[in-house]
């Protein structure tokens, strides 16, 4: 006996499982108020998924508003926050859309499918804007590298990302791999996708035109992930394991590939009025969002949905998170052409409803009305919480515990400094990520200009003109724990700097905010600080947030993860031929350090290896970052610079090692005057980069830096012939002043051995 609207009106006091579905009492009461009666079980299912934290952003909305309120004035934003993804004008009639999202909890439960479907979801967000996806990136965070649980989760996640992304034909051009105690039990799997299109291709998720048809196309609907959204994203894992283990979504990348091609063809053929992908909350989300963005009404015949499993109830169909499905709004005149294109690609499609002007979303099941709601109440006007927050009691003590030389013994002898560099470049966080990245296709589509281990990923968008985009994602969660406001800004400036160092001008920002439980006032304080820091930082740098994602409840019991506001910056480069790679080449080229180094070790990789976390993170200097960025972009454009690298984790010592390994060529360095070697080599001050300049360009470059007020200190020279004099004939060698020497070979061995030793050859 189906629980229809009529029955709900007749049985107002029937007891309903709102708590099991993840709703709170006051939310349930609020639904009854909105409808003027109790909800049907189908309506209850819809509200429970759409009002979950993951879908409604109820705890984060009040803080995320700042991204809009403080947005810097800019004319490059074609579509702003609120749509599936932001769209940015990159010139010459081209636009780019990009976004990063999380799939954290599913990846802990089922690593391969959790990560795979995370890629699938973000790719569908991008195509629903009308763009062809052109690249993916994956910021990944796990517990300690040698923990058994990490061994269980990491290989599956990497295989899932590769398995799905490679099959879609999307080059994986970057990401992050971070190991930290804080993520034990709560790995973070964030997925980013970039897409390109011409301005005229932009499409929005709205259902306009009364009488237009609503088409569901793609994979059939089954029992995947039912309750996943409301249950997984709104519950933490308790110490004994996940409290609930609902069916996890299973992805089919081949179907998604067909979906991409079919969708792009129908979009380019002008057959679509509005389009939406089905992600968290499936049909509930797609129909309510399309309806509330359009004329305001929709009539759906749920029994027309093509099913994989005929035993599904209407509630389950509405909540299903089966992958690889999209929803389009098509005029009656164009529906035949639309269907024909779907058939060409072997993609099933069915008309499930039509647009109305009633202001209601009405869903029928075999002639009975089972849903009759105002769509805005489901999709947009969900509960908004002002969660209480307060600064943690331990914050002051943590910030006071600066790793001074007295507090934490520092290496000083040449042997100790040498060992420190070796320890850093072989540590799991800084070691070569090849074990992971060689499982991803970086070449497909033939437009990859830069990929890991370069500072940013860079993709050529227009083969004729060389117009391209660069993207980077970054976050140092230790900095964010020490000071969430500064930590978010530090993530922003690092990403901004990475883009600039590659020669691209930063344009826009996306973010994936991974935090613990919003019901914990200390976590909520971290969240409010981080969002404020990020919004303020974007205003300083003049680049807007175009969209992003919030993932709450990343905690086990009472222990939340470090606040992890991952920031992605996208930049544009007029001609990818001008990009700046990180490897030096020619003997005699001079190596400069740009920017200033201070005694700043709080939250550093060095301190992390010593088991210390305390103090205030490195100072942010927006004026310096803007200056450095302008100089790096100008130098790249004018051909002044041969190679460059951002200085961040592990400081200058690690940066020059990474450059030497990439170049497979030696160099000689000297420590600048008036600075302690340990500080120079390993401090993590901001707004610094290493630039390699040909002798013929040196004067032009140094004059530009002097004129603009950027410190530029020569501290090295490329030299492939150092082997003989340093006792390693035939080898490439790095000489650090009179302190120590390494062969590139031994650095490579230490750098490349770590991950294979941990996760299998």
């Amino acid at each position, binding site marked *: 006996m189906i629980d229809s609207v009529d029955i709900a009106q007749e049985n107002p006091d029937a007891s309903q499982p709102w708590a099991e579905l993840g709703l709170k009492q006051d939310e349930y009461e609020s639904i009854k108020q909105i409808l003027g009666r109790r909800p049907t079980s189908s309506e209850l299912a819809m509200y429970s998924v759409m009002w979950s934290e993951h879908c409604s952003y109820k705890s984060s909305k009040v803080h995320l508003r700042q991204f809009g309120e403080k947005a810097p004035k800019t004319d490059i934003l074609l579509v702003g926050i609120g749509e599936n993804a932001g769209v940015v004008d990159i010139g010459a009639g081209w636009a780019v859309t990009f976004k990063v999202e999380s799939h954290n909890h599913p990846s802990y439960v089922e690593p391969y499918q959790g990560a795979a479907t995370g890629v699938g979801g973000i790719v569908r967000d991008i195509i629903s804007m009308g763009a062809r996806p052109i690249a993916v990136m994956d910021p990944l965070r796990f517990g300690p590298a040698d923990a058994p649980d990490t061994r269980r989760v990491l290989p599956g996640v990497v*295989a899932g990302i*590769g*398995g799905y992304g*490679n*099959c*879609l*034909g999307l080059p994986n051009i970057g990401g992050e791999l971070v190991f930290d105690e804080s993520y034990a039990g709560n790995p973070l799997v964030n997925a980013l996708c970039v897409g390109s299109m011409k301005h005229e291709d932009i499409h929005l998720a709205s259902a306009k035109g009364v009488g237009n048809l609503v088409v569901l196309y793609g994979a059939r609907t089954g029992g995947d992930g039912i309750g996943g959204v409301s249950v997984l994203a709104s519950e933490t894992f308790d110490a004994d394991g996940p409290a609930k283990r609902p069916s996890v979504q299973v992805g*089919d*990348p*081949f*179907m998604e*590939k*067909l979906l991409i091609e079919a969708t792009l063809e129908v979009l380019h053929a002008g057959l679509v009025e509005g389009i939406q992908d089905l992600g968290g909350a499936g049909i509930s989300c797609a129909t309510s969002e399309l309806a509330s963005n359009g004329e305001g009404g929709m009539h759906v015949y749920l029994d027309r949905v093509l099913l994989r499993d005929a035993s599904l109830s209407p509630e389950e169909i509405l909540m299903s998170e089966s992958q690889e499905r999209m929803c389009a709004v098509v005029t009656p005149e164009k529906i035949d052409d639309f269907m024909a294109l779907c058939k060409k*690609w*072997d993609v099933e499609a069915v008309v499930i409803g039509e647009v109305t002007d009633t202001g209601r979303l009405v869903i029928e099941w075999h002639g009975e009305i089972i849903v009759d709601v105002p769509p805005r109440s489901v999709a947009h006007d969900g509960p908004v919480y002002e969660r209480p927050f307060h600064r943690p009691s331990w914050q002051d003590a943590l910030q006071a515990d600066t790793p001074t030389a007295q507090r934490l013994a520092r290496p000083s002898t040449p042997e100790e400094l040498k060992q420190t560099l070796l320890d850093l470049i072989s540590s799991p966080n800084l070691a070569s990520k090849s074990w992971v*990245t*060689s*499982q*991803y*296709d*970086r*070449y*497909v*589509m*033939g*437009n*990859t*200009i830069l990929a890991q281990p370069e500072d940013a990923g860079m993709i*050529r968008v227009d*083969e004729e003109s060389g117009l391209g985009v660069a993207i980077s994602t970054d976050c140092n969660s230790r900095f964010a724990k020490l000071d969430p406001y500064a930590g978010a800004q530090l993530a922003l400036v690092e990403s901004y700097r990475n883009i600039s160092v590659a020669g691209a001008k930063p344009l826009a920002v996306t973010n994936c905010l991974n935090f613990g439980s919003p019901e914990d006032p200390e976590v909520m304080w971290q969240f409010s600080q981080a969002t404020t820091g990020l919004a303020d930082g974007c205003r300083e740098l003049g680049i807007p947030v175009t969209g992003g994602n919030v993932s709450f409840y990343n905690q086990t019991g009472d222990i939340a993860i470090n606040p992890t506001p991952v920031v992605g910056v996208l930049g544009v480069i007029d001609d*990818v*031929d001008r990009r700046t790679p990180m490897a030096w080449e020619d003997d005699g080229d001079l190596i400069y350090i740009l920017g200033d180094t201070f005694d700043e070790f709080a939250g550093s990789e060095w301190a992390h290896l010593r088991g210390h976390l305390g103090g205030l993170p490195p100072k942010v200097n927006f004026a310096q970052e803007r200056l450095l960025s302008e100089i790096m972009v100008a130098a790249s454009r004018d051909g002044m610079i041969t190679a460059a690298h951002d200085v961040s984790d592990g400081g200058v010592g690690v940066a020059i090692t990474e450059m030497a390994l990439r170049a497979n060529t030696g160099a000689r360095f000297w420590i600048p005057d008036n600075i302690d070697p340990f500080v120079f080599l390993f401090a993590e001050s901001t707004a610094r980069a290493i630039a390699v300049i040909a002798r013929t360009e040196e004067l032009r470059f140094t004059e530009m830096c002097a004129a603009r007020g950027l410190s530029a200190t020569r501290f090295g020279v490329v030299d492939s012939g150092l082997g003989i004099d340093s006792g390693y004939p035939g080898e490439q060698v790095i000489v650090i002043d009179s302190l120590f020497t390494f062969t590139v070979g031994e650095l490579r061995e230490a750098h490349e051995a770590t991950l294979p030793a941990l996760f299998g*050859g």
Partner: protein
Amino acid sequence: MDARIGVVTFPGSLDDADAARAIRIAGATPVALWHGDADLHNVDAVVLPGGFSYGDYLRCGAIAKFAPVMSLIIEKAQVGLPVLGICNGFQILCESHLLPGALTRNDHQHFICRDQKLRIESTETLWTRDFSPGQEIVIPLKNGEGGYVASEVTLDELFAENRVVATYLGGNPNGSYRDIAGISNKAGNVVGLMPHPEHAVEALTGPTTDGIPFFTSVLKSLVGAS
């Protein structure tokens, strides 16, 4: 008149656009061929590109071999049409029995993407004439099912008849028997290659431009024929 080289798109093909670009760079005109269309549109040669045709369902390349366009390609290949199968294309050629042997899962079980050193063993085929014998090149390799296997008898025959087109250098990346990276049929017009020459045609995007000669080689044979 430029030579016309067809590139087949199956559902799930991924490197078709890249193959088309390589053909253009080599100086020929790429022609898009649809799997469901039993018509080769008078092309002078055909490339079966890389990807995951039909999602690699059943076996890699197993379903593609039944596509309408394939029956025509098999027919023409048997009378001299030059055909280059790259990666998934190589798998399809083996499943179609235009080439002997089969491709299996990489022995280490992972998908691997790397810049692979190869030695060109045979410059007699229509697709490798522009190389010099023994030439060492670097082109990208990216696959999960790249292990070439065949019976000892077949392997001996391939080497004896100079039909091993390329071998892996600097370590075997996937468990292929006798380090075989590519082979040809007896007539030398059909070549299967695991690595991807179409990703090494531009200095900007590839590790080298060592892939170009695969595409220029076939043009020479077409000019010669006409």
